[in-house]
């Protein structure tokens, strides 16, 4: 077997495996169930908590996390993934109750601000950042 052909077959097998893995995470109508999102969020929770505790990441007033300090690419990617999942959840609830996802995010932000432990950076409704006491 020629090497080029071998690599072509290997590539096809890899794509097939990736497609099967993605299909398993989706419902038959092509949507990703909330349980999958929650598992992903649960996996990244310790890392996100560490960043929040160190002050690199804060909770903004829209219900999303935001990089405040210098966390590098790691923090940026983690925050982007978390915000993507949160946006999906907010959009889902917004569709359910016929309201804007932003409103759902605002309500979640309020809850986070109430529940956050001291030392966590939060964004006030007026846009200013403060450390919870």
């Amino acid at each position, binding site marked *: 077997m020629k090497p080029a052909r071998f690599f072509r077959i290997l590539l096809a097998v890899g794509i097939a495996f990736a497609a099967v893995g993605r299909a398993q995470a989706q419902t038959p109508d092509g949507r990703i169930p909330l349980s999958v999102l929650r598992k992903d969020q649960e996996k990244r929770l310790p890392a996100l908590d560490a960043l929040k505790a160190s002050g690199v990441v804060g909770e903004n007033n829209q219900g999303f996390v935001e990089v405040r300090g210098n966390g590098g690419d790691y923090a940026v990617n983690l925050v982007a993934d978390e915000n993507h999942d949160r946006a999906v959840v907010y959009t889902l609830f917004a569709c359910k109750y016929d309201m804007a996802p932003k409103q*759902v995010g605002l309500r979640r932000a309020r809850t986070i601000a109430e529940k956050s432990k001291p030392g966590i950076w939060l964004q006030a409704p007026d846009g200013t950042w403060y450390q919870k006491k």
Partner: protein
Amino acid sequence: MNAEIFPAACGGISKGKLGRRPASPAPVGPGKPLGGSPASSAGGKAAFKCRLLICAAALPLAGCVNVKPIEVKPIHVTVDVNVNVKVDKDLDNYFDDLDKKSTTIAPVAKPAAQPAPATP
């Protein structure tokens, strides 16, 4: 009408020239004056009564215009409050497990139900 935007429609009249309408020229020649006092002639009285009637008919209509929007507001507010409560509940159901596992979010202690006052 703005003369700078629609110069042709205004006949090329500049802004400075727009002002009070010039008084109409006095009637020329013999005949009855058009704008005489209402008491001076029967035609004038009739015209005056006609204007009064039109004004009287228009008054109730003008009074009915500003009533409608007031009644809708309480219903709208009630619906919003109910929806917000439902959204909060759904968000809590979804994020509750995550919040419990999180080290940066503390569970908010819900106020315990107060015992009923002892009756003598």
